């Protein structure tokens, strides 16, 4: 009998199955894939932020040793631009500007790194040597490297057909209600901030290998993607015109994505197309320098917000005006990030009754910007959680009490916000109290005094956040402009002797799905996780899928698997009823055992599956043989993880250097499947959140040159930049998915930045500092306290 011991089901702290492979160097990443006869592509990229291409001479390159092909946009006639997956409408109802995003530059380059030409050669070095022999005649144009420059009157246009460089001018909420509330407010607090532009920097740079089989007409693309089926759809249907049935996309082991590997990139289309054109496999692998100028960047908002409060500190209304940088072209999901993933979160965990937000998306001569871990929600959370601290200070409220007073109370769920979302569950008071206790908030002033004696400035900062993930219902997102559904697909294949293969449309690139998903099967079907194989990342194996982003894999993908397991159990019961000569209604199923209720008659899942595949004694008239079920699960709502993060910092006043000394996270991620994996996800997210708060900032100069174009100038968080991150959970269940799960992949990156900056500002409170922009670098802090006295 399949009895699971030790317990490996939901809630078990099981070690990650995939780690043996990863830690012993036996992962199989895209760059590990080499196909017979493979060639190498090198992409010549624009050194200019904005230039007209007067001519390209590839003749010298074509004659170089080892070169098998040199291509420019002239060779790509008939190939579509890279599609955008989300259409936003302007305030007046007209659709956003959606200029073409060519695979290779057509007549003009629009950012440093814009692909101009491709050289394919026998070796990578030969391809690169030849690329240096291409002459491009650039007529350099004035560039707009920032939103301020792009919006200035008479600014150069990134796209001729897009006046004012405005992609869209969108809004949400009730402007009149907000104005009315402001008119009667006792306090009005204004806050302006820039959410710094980030470069995602997954450990594994992007890579793509294209292959074409002329005998069958089949194309294969191996790619570093978070969603191979989406790439197949976008590239097949919109760019290269290849029917799905003739296009296989494989995303094998992927070394981190954080959003940057969601999108369909030019290089994927290039290698797929060139492989067919040349009749040989083509590989392209980015180096880190290329990643900095070609992976979609994140964040980059400039915002002005105003909060109205009554005399007791109750929030009456919130007014937000945001400019969001799209970069030079619309990346796959860029338009939805500063709208439906941002402005809809502006209620936060508070009962603010009236909210109005307007968002202008702006084209600039910079790398396209799209979703990066958290996507929109970190920007909303940073704005709100800083604003609340600023308001507390300005109006004389205690910042914790001010939060508590405005929290949505547990009995108010489901809670309808004024910005479209309906939160299903949460308990913000509980997560706050638990975090304050864990962080010893009450003992802080003593620690501050002790630090002062050592010459250090100590500060503490809270952040009480909510996010929306598991993005959801397809019909709703469709009405908001999504050009795709957002369900997920799971297949449960019970093999004849009872082991299980799970096929999932979600994709694991560090999240530990192979373990978490196996635990779901262990819990429900009673199969030990060693006998559960999770297959993902291959359109030829998995029926369909929308991939992994927005913390959706468990909430949506796990729910699909759960539904498929329900179907397995239902079918298994019919088989068991037949074998044990009972009626189906009398069969009970629990953790791998089918039992006739009230008797000791029982059959294991393995016995049932054997009967299903060897149907000698089988209800063949009513049931098909085999035991395999697929479910498409379309969620009913987003899920709403939330919680409280507390950061504690010390500042060296002489240098301005910030040391993170403590970080406490109490998160409500819904039901926890594997606490160890949740802790890892939260810690990783916090590391990136701390990175945004203290270290990371993507900087362009006025000409659009990327000053932070490598690790020498772009500061990623390292182990010694962090403090021990204490992670705990407080669970309220998601009420609308079968597992009760919410998601944990992004909470760290969402909750941490405002907690850290609130702590930094608190440390400097005696200097009269009210805000510090991210990243709070030593130089910035030093300059702010320069000349100020305590």
């Amino acid at each position: 009998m399949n009895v699971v011991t030790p317990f490996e089901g939901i809630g078990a702290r099981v070690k990650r199955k995939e780690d043996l492979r990863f830690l012993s160097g036996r992962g199989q990443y895209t760059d590990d894939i080499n196909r017979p006869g493979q060639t190498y592509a090198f992409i010549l990229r624009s050194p200019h932020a904005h230039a007209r291409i007067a001519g390209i001479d590839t003749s010298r390159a074509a004659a170089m040793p080892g070169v098998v092909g040199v291509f420019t946009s002239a060779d790509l006639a008939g190939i579509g631009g890279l599609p955008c997956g989300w259409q936003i409408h302007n305030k007046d109802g007209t659709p956003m500007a959606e200029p073409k995003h060519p695979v290779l530059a057509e007549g003009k380059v629009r950012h440093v790194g814009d692909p101009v030409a491709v050289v394919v050669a026998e070796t990578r070095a030969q391809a690169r040597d030849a690329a240096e022999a291409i002459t491009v005649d650039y007529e350099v144009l004035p560039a707009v490297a920032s939103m301020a420059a792009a919006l200035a009157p008479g600014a150069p246009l990134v796209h001729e057909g897009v006046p004012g460089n405005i992609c869209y001018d969108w809004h949400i909420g009730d402007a009149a209600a907000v104005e009315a509330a402001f008119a009667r407010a006792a306090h009005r607090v204004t806050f302006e901030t820039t959410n710094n532009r980030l470069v995602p920097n997954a450990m594994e740079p992007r890579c793509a290998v294209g292959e074409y089989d002329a005998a069958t007409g089949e194309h294969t693309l191996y790619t570093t993607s978070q969603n191979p089926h989406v790439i197949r759809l976008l590239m097949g249907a919109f760019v290269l015109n290849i029917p799905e049935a003739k296009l296989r996309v494989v995303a094998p082991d992927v070394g981190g994505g954080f959003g940057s590997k969601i999108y369909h990139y030019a290089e994927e289309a290039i290698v797929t197309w060139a492989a067919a054109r040349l009749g040989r496999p083509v590989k392209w692998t980015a180096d880190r320098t290329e990643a900095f100028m070609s992976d979609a960047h994140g964040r980059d908002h400039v915002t002005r917000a105003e909060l109205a409060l009554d005399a007791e500190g109750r929030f009456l209304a919130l007014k937000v005006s945001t400019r969001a940088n799209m970069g030079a072209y619309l990346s796959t999901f860029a338009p939805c990030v500063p709208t439906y993933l941002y402005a809809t979160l502006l209620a936060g965990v508070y009962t603010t009754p009236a909210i109005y937000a307007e968002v202008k998306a702006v084209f600039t001569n910079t790398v396209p910007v799209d979703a990066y871990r958290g996507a929109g929600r970190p920007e909303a959370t940073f704005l709100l959680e800083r604003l609340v601290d600023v308001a507390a200070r300005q109006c004389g409220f205690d910042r914790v009490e001010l939060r508590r007073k405005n929290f949505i109370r547990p009995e108010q769920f489901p809670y309808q916000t004024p910005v479209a979302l309906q939160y299903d569950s949460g308990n913000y008071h509980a997560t706050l109290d638990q975090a304050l206790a864990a962080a010893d908030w009450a003992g802080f002033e003593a620690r501050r005094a002790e630090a002062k004696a050592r010459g250090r400035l100590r500060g503490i900062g809270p952040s009480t956040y909510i996010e929306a993930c598991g993005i959801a219902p397809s019909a709703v997102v469709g009405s908001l402009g999504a050009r795709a559904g957002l369900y997920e697909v799971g297949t449960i294949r019970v093999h004849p002797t009872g082991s299980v293969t799970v096929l999932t449309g979600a994709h694991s690139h560090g999240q530990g799905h192979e373990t978490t998903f196996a635990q779901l099967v262990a819990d429900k079907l009673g199969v030990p996780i060693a006998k559960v194989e999770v297959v993902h990342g291959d359109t030829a194996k998995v029926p369909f899928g929308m991939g992994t982003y927005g913390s959706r894999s468990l909430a949506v993908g796990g729910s699909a698997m759960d539904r498929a397991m329900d179907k397995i159990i239902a079918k298994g019961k019919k088989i068991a009823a037949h074998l044990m000569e009972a009626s189906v209604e009398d069969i009970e199923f629990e953790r791998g055992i089918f039992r006739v209720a009230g008797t000791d008659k029982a059959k294991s899942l393995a016995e049932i599956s054997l009967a299903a595949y060897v149907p000698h004694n089988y209800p063949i008239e009513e049931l098909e043989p085999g035991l395999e079920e697929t479910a498409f699960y379309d969620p009913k709502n987003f899920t709403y993880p939330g919680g409280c993060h507390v950061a504690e910092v010390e500042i060296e006043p002489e240098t301005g250097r910030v040391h993170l000394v403590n970080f406490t996270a109490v998160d409500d991620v819904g039901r926890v499947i594997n606490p160890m994996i949740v802790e890892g996800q939260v810690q990783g997210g916090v590391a990136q959140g701390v990175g945004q708060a203290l270290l990371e900032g993507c900087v362009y100069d006025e000409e659009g040159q990327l000053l932070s174009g490598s690790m020498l100038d772009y500061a990623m968080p390292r182990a010694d930049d962090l403090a021990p991150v204490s992670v705990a959970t407080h669970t309220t269940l998601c009420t609308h998915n079968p597992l009760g799960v919410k998601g944990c992949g992004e909470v760290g990156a969402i909750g941490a930045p405002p907690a850290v900056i609130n702590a930094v500002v608190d440390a400097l409170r005696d200097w009269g500092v009210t805000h510090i922009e991210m990243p709070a670098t030593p130089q910035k802090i030093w300059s702010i306290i320069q000349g100020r006295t305590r």
Partner: protein
Amino acid sequence: MYDFAYHKPATLADAVKLLAADPDAKAISGGHTLIPALKLRLNRPSALVDLSGIAEMKGIRREGDALVIGALARHVEVAENAEVKAAIPALAYLAAHIGDVQVRNRGTIGGSLANNDPAADYPAAVLGLGATLHTSKRKIAADDFFLGMFTTALEPDEILVAVSFPIPERAGYAKMKNPASRYVMAGAFVSKGPMGVRVAINGAGPCVFRQAAMEAALAANWSPEAVAAIKQDPEGLNSDIHGSAEYRAHLVTVMAKRAVAAAG
């Protein structure tokens, strides 16, 4: 990287010959500056002359009142060597805080000094201790060696063989790291000993330099307070997205103070 020829001579004389014969050839020691530059195609040498097999460039030994460190000594060797720790603990400390483990396991003192990156660590110790540089041709005093950004007194076919550090009474080093690269944004190496009182500043300017006002103040009163009030002129200092010249000038004072405190 571009193609290049590779030589691994066994003697200093052979290495010099190879470099003298080909003006486009380049020496390589730990490769932790040169290889990244080659990978970025910033450099196109016709040949690399690998110095790592040359015995006379290796080893760390005490010679009378000086510590002699072979140019091929890797950062980790200097950091962990008992003679260095006993004679000039500030030098061991400096070496132990260069880059990361991989860098310290490959990078050499000779490579670092020949490269003379304004943000490198070793130049501060060499200038701050008044060391002597032994080359394949001659001896060069520290004060005459560092000529400017990435420029030294070394001639193209001249190889740095060893560095002789006079042992000081006391010495200390402090630096503020660039948050991204973790190279030096501003650092100070201070010492008092046979070469007098010396304060060498790295990271802040285009080339390591001596801070005369601080040296005078410390000669009169060896204490952190003595340098605390001395301001560095920001004129001519480096400025980038991580630190303006003004910020670096301010850090010079802070690091000098910390270095003196560390020296005891």
